């Protein structure tokens, strides 16, 4: 699904991301953990063709993301509020995204059903613009919109941040269901070690732009991660 060759991003002489080789198979769910400034978001942006890499390539389904737009058809993503069209209402936004993927009104309603728990009655039918929602609810809207098209690849940056504990648990279950039922490939970054372990079957640690560890999740993973991050 995703292959990275020799990817590098250098800002003013500092290398922020340096990933010589990485491949993620279809259906795999990968968690990316690392401290602030480790380069997670930069890596995601290069995968989504939002930043021009200093060196190297990103391939989605064997097509270079910089040369072909085909990946946009099967990739859903939400990194930050910069992805939300904030002067629309939540419904209008879902409608717009749905239209781009040729979904009918009914399709959209149906695909949002699993999100109703997460929305907790605070998102739909509110008669307000996205810019007036709280950070947490904005995140819920962004994640739902990313998953709306049933993408084969779902990329989320810090999906658990800014959410209240109940919402975090609901989102965790939701992502697990998407993975198990739709076989969605996922790439999720998080600061919350326990959540990301429950959602993802493969964990990678990014430090100073380098992938320093790459492991399959098992009962010892949380302890290993905690040891790693204890300074």
């Amino acid at each position: 699904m995703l292959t990275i060759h020799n990817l590098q991003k250098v800002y003013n002489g500092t290398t922020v991301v340096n990933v010589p080789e990485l491949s993620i198979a279809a259906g795999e769910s990968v968690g990316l953990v690392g401290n602030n400034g480790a380069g997670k978001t930069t890596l995601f942006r290069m995968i989504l063709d939002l930043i021009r890499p200093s060196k190297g390539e990103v391939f989605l389904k064997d097509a270079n993301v910089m040369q072909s737009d085909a990946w946009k058809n099967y990739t859903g993503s939400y990194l930050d509020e910069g992805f939300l069209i904030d002067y629309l209402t939540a419904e209008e936004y879902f409608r717009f995204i749905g239209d781009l993927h040729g979904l009918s009104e009914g399709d959209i309603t149906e695909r949002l059903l699993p999100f109703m728990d997460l929305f907790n009655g605070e998102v739909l039918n509110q008669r307000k613009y996205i810019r007036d929602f709280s950070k947490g609810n904005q995140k819920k809207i962004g994640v739902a919109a990313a998953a709306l098209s049933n993408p084969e690849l779902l990329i989320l940056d810090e999906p658990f941040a800014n959410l209240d504990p109940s919402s975090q648990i609901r989102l965790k279950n939701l992502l697990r269901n998407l993975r198990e039922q739709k076989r969605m490939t996922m790439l999720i970054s998080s600061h919350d070690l326990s959540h990301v372990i429950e959602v993802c079957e493969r964990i990678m640690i990014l430090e100073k732009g380098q992938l320093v560890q790459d492991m399959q999740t098992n009962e010892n993973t949380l302890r290993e991660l905690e040891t790693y991050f204890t300074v």
Partner: protein
Amino acid sequence: MLLSLLPHQWKAELRSSVFKKSIALNIILGLLILYFGSIFLFLGFYLDKILLKLFPGQDVVATFNGGLVFYFLIDLFFRFLLQDLPVLAVQPYLHLPVKKNKLVHYLLVKSIPSFFNLLPFLLIVPFMQSVVVPAVGQGGATAWLLSLIAITLLNNYLLLYFKRQMSTKPLYTLSFGLAIVLLMLLDYFGLVQLQLVSKAIFGAMLQQPALVAVPILLMVAAYLLNYTFLKSHTYPEELKVRKASEATGTSIAFLSRFGEIGKLIELEVKLIWRHKRTKSILTMSVFFLFYGLLFYRNESYLEGFSFLIFVGIILSGMPMFNYGQFLPGWQSAHFDGLLTLRISPYQFYRAKYWMMVPVMLLAYILTLPYGFFGYKIILINTATLLFNIGVNVYVILFFSVYNKERLDLSKSATFNWQGVGASKFVMVLPAMLLPILIYLPFGLLGVPYAGIAAIGGIGLLGVIFQKQLLQWSANRFVENKYKLAAGYRQSS
């Protein structure tokens, strides 16, 4: 305390990112200030002669006094339109051990050194020195000046109070403006002689300097009104004028018939409709439709061609120049999102094109009545419309990839220099000069209408090669999108 707060205000102005970034902008701002300043100074020294010419045989000071009431009403009107409320500036101090009274005084005092309060005195002070002092002596003139200052500040504080109370309903402002125009018309036809009242009031001020206490007391009252109100409402959520707005409007059904393009245009129409800054650009563009009146009434302009070409470009093109000069910066807040969505750059730019073309057509149709000033105007405006649609659109799209600055749409457009950079001024040049350059050789050869035809013809070529030109614009966009996205991510 005030003394340590006011320097913060200075720093906030001086360090605001807009001013730090662009030298060209600073130079142009400086020139503008010099320009308006010198106009006012010039008027101040020559006003007596101008007034004498307009109203021969009347006392100059009395005429000036008669106009003052209208001046202050118009001043109030423009303040409603343009002046912003300095409110949220206190937010970072609210939790600190600073007395509330001090903060409120700070807010109110801070509003004094503004463009609105200072500019008129460039005119009034020289006028006073050269005309009023010789007429009534230093004492009366000083009282007169003080009363004008007091009324200016009264307007300042009245505005602060009412704008906060009524929030900003454009309808109120508009009806207020209409009421002023109506009063002036009534005065002109001699039905209601408001100017006599004005003459009497300010005349009395000159004779009885003690009367200056009245406007000063009124000003103090307005200040206290603001003070008591603000003191009991120092919570940020109450200070903010605009609360979370309720969502309005639904989808525009007929646009969705145009498929993906229609969707993108609908998105942008909503963007324009739901933000303050874009809406004020819309109003500004409507005002520019009357631009023709300035020139077409003047016989000497109607003789030539180059000037009319310039006016023609402005009349149909102004909405596009106004809005297009910031493209695609309007969408800077969700630019990353747009790039990851299933929208091809070609479609993205085609939507922009098909949004601007109907607007220019509409402006063209609305300004057709100018044809009464001469059929030549219709010919020229048709040619310039074609040029706008065929060439200037691409000039705008060409420069769009240089608009790397993020725009904050919630702020109003007037005096908003955010995103204004050197490229804006470079952009206007070819758009305005090119058609005149095309015309020039024909004009010199004595075949002006062939020149007009050439402008229209070149525009038509652009219309015919629309697809290629849009593709070229889209390709440039693809080359530059990383730079744009990086620029938009930096909040300014």
